[in-house]
């Protein structure tokens, strides 16, 4: 189980709204039955042409942005399909943090489960980071703050996601400890928790 630590990196700017999971990982790569190896397919149709050659104008193909661990983008990132493959691709590529004004709900949850930190910032703060794209950014989850040069930007995160990322708890084990509560629930709700053909 991975845990999230303080990260310092520059960001890769991707200033587009509503980037959907079909763009993050196109469907032709959803047929794999493992969780690993998706990084090379990240943003595939934007990254490569129909012959499989790199498209020079796409940001991930610019060597300047290699090895950056923060993805900086715009509203409603990760919309559309629930495919967790999208986060597997982002994480496998090397991103540990995504900063955006808003995220799609299912994608946000999928990030937490895979130890990728989705940070919601206000649009002016996002714009500030886009305007200074080579600035070194330090993200401290414990303190819930981003520092870049002399600027400090606090961010919000729900407590359960924060604990999950910091402690890397095995959620299933935690739930299985509540076995008696689950069994009681089933006993008290027989109409819905039983199916007969």
């Amino acid at each position, binding site marked *: 189980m991975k845990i999230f630590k303080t990260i310092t990196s520059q960001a890769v700017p991707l200033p587009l709204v509503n980037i959907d999971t079909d763009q993050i990982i196109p469907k032709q790569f959803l047929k794999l039955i493992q969780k690993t190896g998706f990084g090379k397919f990240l943003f595939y*149709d934007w990254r490569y042409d129909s012959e499989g050659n790199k498209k020079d104008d796409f940001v991930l193909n610019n060597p300047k942005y290699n090895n950056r661990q923060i993805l900086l983008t715009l509203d409603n990132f990760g919309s559309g399909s629930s495919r967790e493959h999208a986060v597997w691709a982002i994480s496998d590529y090397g991103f540990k943090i995504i900063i955006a004004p808003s995220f799609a709900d299912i994608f946000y949850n999928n990030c937490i489960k895979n130890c990728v930190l989705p940070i919601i910032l206000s649009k002016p703060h996002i714009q500030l980071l886009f305007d200074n794209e080579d600035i070194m950014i330090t993200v401290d989850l414990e303190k819930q703050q981003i520092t870049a040069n002399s600027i400090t930007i606090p961010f919000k995160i729900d407590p359960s996601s924060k604990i999950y990322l910091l402690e890397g708890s095995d959620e299933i084990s935690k739930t299985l400890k509540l076995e008696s509560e689950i069994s009681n629930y089933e006993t008290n709700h027989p109409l819905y928790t039983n199916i007969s053909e």
Partner: protein
Amino acid sequence: MKKTLFEKIWDNHIVYPQDKDKQVDSYLLYIDRHLIHEVTSPQAFESLRLNNRKVRRPDLTFATMDHNVPTSDRSLPILDEISSIQISTLNDNCKEFGIKLYDLHSPYQGIVHVIGPELGLTIPGSTIVCGDSHTSTHGAFGAFAFGIGTSEVEHVLATQCLWLKKPKNFAVNFIGRRKNIHAITAKDMVLYLIRKIGIGGGIGSVLEYRGETISELSMEQRMTICNMSIEAGARAGLIAPDEITISYLKGRKYLPQGNKFDQLLDTWKELVTDDDSSFDMAVDINLQELAPQVTWGTNPSMTIDITDTIPYPDEYSQGNENQKMAAIKSLEYMGIEAGIPITSIPVDRVFIGSCTNSRLDDLVEASIVVRGRKVSSKVRAMVVPGSQQVKFAAEKLGIDKIFKEAGFEWRESGCSMCLGMNPDILSPKERCASTSNRNFEGRQGVGGRTHLVSPVMAAAAAIKGHFFDVREWL
């Protein structure tokens, strides 16, 4: 205390309340029904095996194969080797963990969101999850139904529960009446809603669809609306159950009979938002002037009336620079010019199918448009019924013949060209009038151009060879 429909279902499923000492804001919720398909489940099963865990309630878990199954002759082997592995993996996993599977040769196979209701697995007041965003479909029955990722699929398999933060209540009030109930469909209602509130408009909330028009819709039409809740970014959509819901469900395979059914009916009577309940958000959508809707861009909010022209980026973005950039990028991808009438745009392909619009009701309505007419010689058109049961029922009514005589292909059931994981895809730059739910770049094939429409509008486009105001025919 006054409660919304959503709050009643939520409260009724709490296994373990939020842990205030630790300031944790998640609740453990019981999941009544878990639906599985081949694409988002293999990694979950693999992880169970690695951790030596079993499926807690295989009897509440149901599987089918839909996303990458071919829609051609079922007696032939699957040519795509990787698809074939994924399909046989689901088969093996279901056997190993004791899960009921409706496989390719079952008369109940179909798109997971079509077969759930058909089998009576979808019932009012329940919680339903599936590793698929369009699980919101089942909300049409007054169930809290939502899509989850593969890690959550694993969690539900192991525990039959999920940790969730409580979403907000969002009322969508449909006001007024449509002027032509055959030409202006549930699909047009939901596309218009997304056009108004945007594809992020419902983030973090559950949409409850309300109003007289909603209560007049068939279950199939209600499913179309709830299905696309996710396209507005919502966690789920909900419609309160009523007599139409009950008569749809009565006698379905997995519903109890007699006394037990009556007990269920009693609980369903409570499934309504109390008068004067408060919603966190609300929007009124007037149906009086609603026209058939067509998408022009690369997300479902980029929608116009069939009588409109393609908007200019400035007109669309109304001063928002990021939206303007998105519109420019969309127009370029779609290969269309701003300012031209949408009816002047020719189509190459027509797809009637998907979990949004592949049920009997959809096919019957589309067949009324098609009857006695021919598909344009420039168009390749296909109908992909949502399930084997839909296919059989349609064939019994002779609807397959109407489509085939007009020049449509009549296929086997599956997700098909909605997401192009099987051989049914668009070629680069091909343009499709599609009854599916997403017009994202590359969704139906790399470089393919998707315009979302209702089944009757898709049928009309197939015949005319371009978008056409179906009100002229209905």
